[in-house]
C-alpha cells in the first residue's frame, strides 16, 4: 500500500464517519466510556500518589514516632489496648540513651479538646505538648508568626502555636497572632500558625494546637496518658539504623522480656503508604474492570456497526475492487474506519473527562490536582485504536474477500 493511498484512505474513513454522525457517535459510546474510566482511574491514582507524597512530606519521610498505638491497623486491638502506657520517665530515659537520631523529643497528646476564643468554641482539637525542638521537624513549619523558644518551653509559658484549621475556623477574617485563646481553662497567646499540611487522609493534622510540653503537663498532668516520642532520623537512609536502635532502647527502658513481642509501636509515614496500597489496588481493580467491560461492550458495538457498514457498502467495495483496489487496500480501508471511529471516541472521552475532572475538583474542592498524565492520554489513544482494529478485523476481512462481480451486482 502506498503512502498517498493511505492518506486518501484515512480521509475517506473520516468522511464516511461524518456522513453518519449520530450512528458513529452511538457506536463509539462504549469506547468513550472505556476511555473515560481509564483516564478517571489514572487521575485518581495520580491524585492519590501526589496526596500521599504530600502527606509523607508533612509527617516527614525521615521521622519515627514511638508510641503505644499503631497508626495503621492490622494488629490485634486487644493486645494493643493492653499495652502499658509509655510514661514520661521512660520517654526521657529513651531520649537520653538514643545516639543515632538527629532530633528526639517526647510529646504529650490530649485528644478531643475544646479551644475557646471569646465566646466562640471549637471542638475536637488535639492539644499537643511538645518541646521547642518540634520546630525542627516538618510538622513544625509555621507560616505565620514563630514557634515557641527554648526559654518559653522551659518556663511553661502560656503561648500556643495553632494548626491551620484552628486558625481559619476561629479567625476566618482576622489575624490570629497575639489573640488569646482558652485551652482547658487556661489562657494562651497565639504566637504562630502551622502551615496547612492535611490532605484527605491526614486532615486531623490541621486540627491541632501546640503548647510547650511543660505547660501541657501543668494542665493535663504527667500520669494517666501515654507519651509518644518523635524521632528525626536525619535522612531516609538512616531510618533502619535509628529504628533498630530505638527498638532496642525502648525494650530495655520498658523491661520487655527477651522473646516477647514489642509492647509499643514504631510508627512512620510508610504506614500510610501501606494503607494506600489497598486503596490503589481497589482503584486499579475497579477501574480496570469497568474499562475492560466498556471496551468489550464497545468492541461488540463497533464490530456490529462495521458489519452493517460493510454490507451497506458492498457495491462500493465492488467498484473499488473493479478499479484496482487490492484485498489489502479494502482491509486497511475498513480497519482505518474502525480505528478512526474509536479514535474519535477517545477524543470525545478526553474532552468529557477533562471537563468532569475539572468540575469535580472545583466543586468538591478536592486535594487531588485536576491533572491527567500525558502518558495516560497516549496509552488510552493507542488502546482505543487497537480496540478499533480488533473489532474491525472480521468485518474488514469479510469486505476484503468479497467477490468483485457479486459485489458489483449488489443492490
Amino acid at each position: 500500500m502506498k503512502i498517498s493511498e493511505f492518506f486518501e484512505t484515512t480521509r475517506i474513513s473520516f468522511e464516511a464517519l461524518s456522513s453518519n454522525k449520530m450512528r458513529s457517535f452511538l457506536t463509539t459510546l462504549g469506547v468513550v466510556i472505556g476511555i473515560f474510566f481509564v483516564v478517571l482511574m489514572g487521575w485518581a491514582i495520580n491524585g492519590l500518589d501526589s496526596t500521599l507524597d504530600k502527606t509523607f512530606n508533612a509527617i516527614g519521610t525521615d521521622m519515627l514516632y514511638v508510641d503505644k498505638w499503631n497508626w495503621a491497623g492490622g494488629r490485634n486491638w486487644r493486645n494493643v489496648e493492653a499495652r502499658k502506657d509509655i510514661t514520661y520517665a521512660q520517654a526521657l530515659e529513651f531520649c537520653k540513651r538514643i545516639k543515632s537520631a538527629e532530633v528526639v523529643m517526647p510529646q504529650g497528646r490530649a485528644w478531643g479538646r475544646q479551644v475557646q476564643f471569646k465566646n466562640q468554641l471549637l471542638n475536637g482539637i488535639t492539644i499537643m505538648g511538645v518541646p521547642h525542638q518540634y520546630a525542627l521537624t516538618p510538622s513544625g513549619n509555621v507560616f505565620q508568626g514563630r514557634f515557641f523558644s527554648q526559654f518559653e518551653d522551659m518556663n511553661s509559658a502560656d503561648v500556643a502555636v495553632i494548626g491551620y484549621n484552628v486558625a481559619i475556623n476561629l479567625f476566618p477574617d482576622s489575624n490570629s497572632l497575639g489573640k488569646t485563646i482558652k485551652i482547658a481553662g487556661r489562657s494562651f497567646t497565639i504566637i504562630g500558625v502551622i502551615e496547612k499540611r492535611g490532605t484527605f487522609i491526614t486532615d486531623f493534622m490541621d486540627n491541632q494546637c501546640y503548647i510547650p510540653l511543660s505547660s501541657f503537663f501543668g494542665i493535663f498532668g504527667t500520669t494517666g496518658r501515654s507519651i509518644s516520642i518523635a524521632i528525626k532520623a536525619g535522612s531516609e537512609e538512616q531510618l533502619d539504623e535509628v529504628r533498630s536502635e530505638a527498638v532496642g532502647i525502648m525494650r530495655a527502658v520498658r523491661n520487655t522480656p527477651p522473646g516477647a513481642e514489642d509492647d509499643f509501636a514504631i510508627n512512620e509515614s510508610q504506614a500510610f503508604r501501606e494503607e494506600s496500597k489497598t486503596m490503589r489496588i481497589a482503584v486499579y481493580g475497579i477501574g480496570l474492570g469497568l474499562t475492560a467491560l466498556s471496551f468489550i461492550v464497545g468492541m461488540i458495538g463497533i464490530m456490529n456497526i462495521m458489519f452493517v457498514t460493510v454490507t451497506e457498502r458492498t457495491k462500493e467495495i465492488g467498484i473499488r475492487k473493479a478499479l484496482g483496489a487490492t484485498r489489502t487496500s479494502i482491509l486497511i480501508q475498513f480497519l482505518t474506519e474502525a480505528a478512526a471511529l474509536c479514535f474519535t471516541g477517545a477524543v470525545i472521552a478526553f474532552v468529557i473527562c477533562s471537563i468532569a475532572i475539572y468540575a469535580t475538583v472545583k466543586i468538591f474542592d478536592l486535594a487531588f490536582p485536576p491533572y491527567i498524565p500525558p502518558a495516560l492520554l497516549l496509552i488510552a489513544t493507542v488502546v482505543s485504536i487497537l480496540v478499533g482494529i480488533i473489532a474491525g478485523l472480521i468485518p474488514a476481512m469479510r469486505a476484503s474477500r468479497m467477490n468483485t462481480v457479486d459485489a458489483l451486482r449488489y443492490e
Partner: protein
Amino acid sequence: MNTPIINIEHIARVYDMGGEKVHALRDVSLNIYPNEYIAIMGPSGSGKSTMMNILGCLDTPSSGIYNFKGLDVKEMDDNDLAEIRNREIGFVFQTFNLLPRASALKNVELPLVYSGVSRSERRDRAIKTLEEVGLGDRMQHKPNELSGGQRQRVAIARALVTKPSIILADEPTGNLDSKTGVEIMRLFQELWKRGNTIIVVTHEEDIARHAHRIVRIRDGKVESDTTNPQSAIA
C-alpha cells in the same frame, strides 16, 4: 498483423448453483488487437456480461486459456489481477457505478489512488480527463446532481484516466435515452479515433453500427465474428 492485447482460447465459465451447473460460457475463442472497436451482441442471458467480466479480470474462467498482453491470467494472484484492472483496463458499466458521496472529480481520481499517484498529480489528471469528456464545468458535482449522460461521461473519464490498454463497456447506453445514448457512442467513437481499444456490449443494432467488428454470442458460444462493412469509420 500485430500481437493481440487479449487472446482467449476455448474459454468456459460454469456457475455452480447448488448442484445445478449453469454454463454461462462454453468454448469461446477470441483475439483482440490494439485500437479495435468491437461490439459484442447477443440475446439476454447469452453470456455477454460473463465474458466481459472475464476479459476485465473481474472473474476467472473455469477452463481455457486467457493471455493478456502475452501474460497468462490463470497464473496471476489476486493482487496481480487488481493491478491489471487498475492499469490496463477501463470499465464502463450500465449503471455507471459511481461512488454516490464523492464528487465527479473524486470519482475520476479513484483509480489513480490505487496506482499510488500523488494527490496533486491525481487531481491534474482527473481534471484533464473530465475536460476531455466535456465535463470541465461539472467537476465538483455529486453523481445525483448530474444527468444520466453526464454520469456516464464521468464513468468514462474514470475509465480513461489511467490510460488503460482497453476499455470495456457493458451496455453503457442501457440506462440512457436514445439521444443521450448516441452522444455517448459518439464519445466512444472519438476515443477510438484517438487510438483507444474499445469493447462495447450492446443489444441494440443502432449502437453496434458504430463498431467495426461485431461478435455475436448465443448460448455461451460465438455465433459469428464479422467486420462491420457499414461501420461509421469515416
